[in-house]
């Protein structure tokens, strides 16, 4: 249980700068999700907090203590890896107990803590099994258990759900979030999946190319993206971007409108040709192409009439839903 502070943290591998200075203050018990496309440096950032990568410059503080030069085990953190990193030759019990054994925790204490974690994660029946005898979801839970028994100040998650199938992912998402609430542990969670970020985060950090483009509560980021990148990355299907020119307006700004704010209409702001539509059941995504080739997606209620492919339709939206970005991608 502790706060976590990143103060202008930078990372370079040789001459290549990977992280260009990131500052975040994480409150005690807060669930922070770092989200971004692959290669944006989000995992590197997490690994610097864990102590698996050195910090090139800036400070990492856990509970007000500067930990830059400390070994991972001294930082009071626990990490859940993408491929779980369970020790294949050890039983579930030994996997969870390994860290405590090294820390020379008394045997009775170890057994109690592991039993407690196993109860919490519904792993009691599997304690004597080897990791290979478990399903993906169970392995994930063991990895969580290994983190829990250490009673760390900060949980670090490195894309923990990306090896699971879609259904299990949704379930584990809820479980992780519930568990974190119950334990009240500060958590830093890295993912490339914006749905995970939206559903789990108290606050999220949207990273792009080594820079934190925006830090904020999920709905706030969704409603008010700070940059064109954030507007395009958060939300599915992504925001439609149109140049001012296409809309017949002055200036070189780009206008972003979310698919759910875009309507098919007679006339309206501009016309486009329907390319194809995807019926998802509750809603239908209509993909259109404007005269200049820009792709636009419109989210339509399934009950509404869907234009035939190739049909020419008008697009309309409320000006209040428009997001304007200048040529550097910043909101203006």
């Amino acid at each position, binding site marked *: 249980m502790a706060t976590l502070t990143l103060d202008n943290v930078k990372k370079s591998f040789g001459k290549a700068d990977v992280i260009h200075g990131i500052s975040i203050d994480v409150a005690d018990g807060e669930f922070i999700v770092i989200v971004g496309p692959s290669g944006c440096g989000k995992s590197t950032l997490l690994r610097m907090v*864990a*102590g*698996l990568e050195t910090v090139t410059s800036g400070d990492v503080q856990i509970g007000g203590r500067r930990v830059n030069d400390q*070994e*991972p*085990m001294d930082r009071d*953190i*626990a*990490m859940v*890896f*993408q*491929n779980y*990193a*369970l*020790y*294949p*030759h050890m039983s579930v019990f030994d996997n969870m107990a*390994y*860290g405590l054994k*090294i*820390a020379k925790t008394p045997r009775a204490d170890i057994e109690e803590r592991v039993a407690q974690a196993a109860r919490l994660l519904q792993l009691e029946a599997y304690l004597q099994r*080897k990791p*290979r005898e478990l399903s993906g979801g169970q392995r994930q839970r063991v990895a969580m258990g*290994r983190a829990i028994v*250490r009673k760390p100040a900060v949980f670090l998650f490195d894309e923990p759900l990306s090896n699971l199938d879609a259904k299990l992912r949704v379930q584990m998402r809820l479980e992780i979030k519930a568990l974190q609430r119950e334990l009240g542990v500060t958590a830093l969670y890295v993912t490339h999946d914006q749905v995970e970020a939206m559903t789990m985060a108290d606050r999220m950090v949207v990273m792009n190319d080594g820079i934190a483009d925006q830090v904020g509560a999920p709905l706030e980021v969704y409603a008010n993206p700070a940059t064109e990148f954030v507007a395009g990355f958060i939300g599915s299907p992504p925001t439609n971007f149109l140049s001012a020119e296409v809309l017949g307006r002055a200036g070189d700004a780009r206008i972003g409108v979310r698919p759910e704010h875009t309507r098919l209409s007679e006339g309206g702001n501009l016309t486009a040709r329907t390319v194809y539509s995807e019926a998802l059941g509750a809603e239908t995504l209509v993909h259109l192409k404007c005269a200049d080739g820009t792709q636009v997606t419109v989210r339509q209620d399934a009950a509404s009439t869907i234009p035939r492919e190739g049909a020419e339709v008008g697009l309309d939206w409320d000006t209040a839903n428009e997001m304007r970005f200048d040529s550097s991608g910043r909101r203006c």
Partner: protein
Amino acid sequence: MAERNGMVERRGAGLWLTHLGLIVGIAFIFFPIWLAFVASTVEQQDIVRPPMPLLPGDQFFANYARALTSGVNAPVSTMLLNSLVMAVGIALGKIAISLLSAFAIVYFRFPGRRLFFWLIFLTLMLPVEVRIVPTYEVIANFGMLNSYQGLILPLIASATATFLFRQFFMTVPDELAEAARVDGAKPMRFFFDILLPMSRTNIAALFVILFIYGWNQYLWPLLITTDPEMNTIVMGIKQMFPSGDDIADWPVIMATSLLAMVPPVLVVVGMQRLFVRGLVESEK
């Protein structure tokens, strides 16, 4: 109608032909061993008087007892023990050293890491025979002639095994090392608690190969053991051959040859189970 059995379709005549081919092949390979066995169970006169018998005689216990207790120069039991110590020493030593050096090369970043790896790799090009004179000089100066250390130490470094373990360690996910670091394991702790148990199937496989390598050493023991009490079995067989007008005691020589084959066979059969089971488990 072709009946399916396993992966290969049964084909009437073809099946018999392939089996016949295999049986003939096995008989061909096995025949000299059978002859050796027959020769070890008869008396000297039966062997030297043609035609050589093809069925075992009644001297089995007498010949083997004679071989084990007195032999020609030294009792076979002593030579078997010498060979066992040398083969086990070489196998275990090679495994220990190559595990550690592969661990260093894969998991530590130190200056000259690649250089050291290639240096180790280069020694592959220098088999015992090439460096035998300087090695002899060194061992002689250390006073290790006619000793187990002298038999084992010069053969204990292994580029092949180092390379094998390096390749295996590189397939172990980095996250395991990192997880162990987060759990607070120091490098050697990680090595003993995680890497070593994970390598056990490789170790078993390598032990078999290296044991046989050590067991079959001929030139080196021949060079540094002058005392018959330190002879190893493989060179011992050669020593039994008569020089000049001596009469060869063929039954004892053949009994010795067969005895020399027993330990490697036991190791292969015994360890095979272990590493086949390990391979089937397919973990990681």
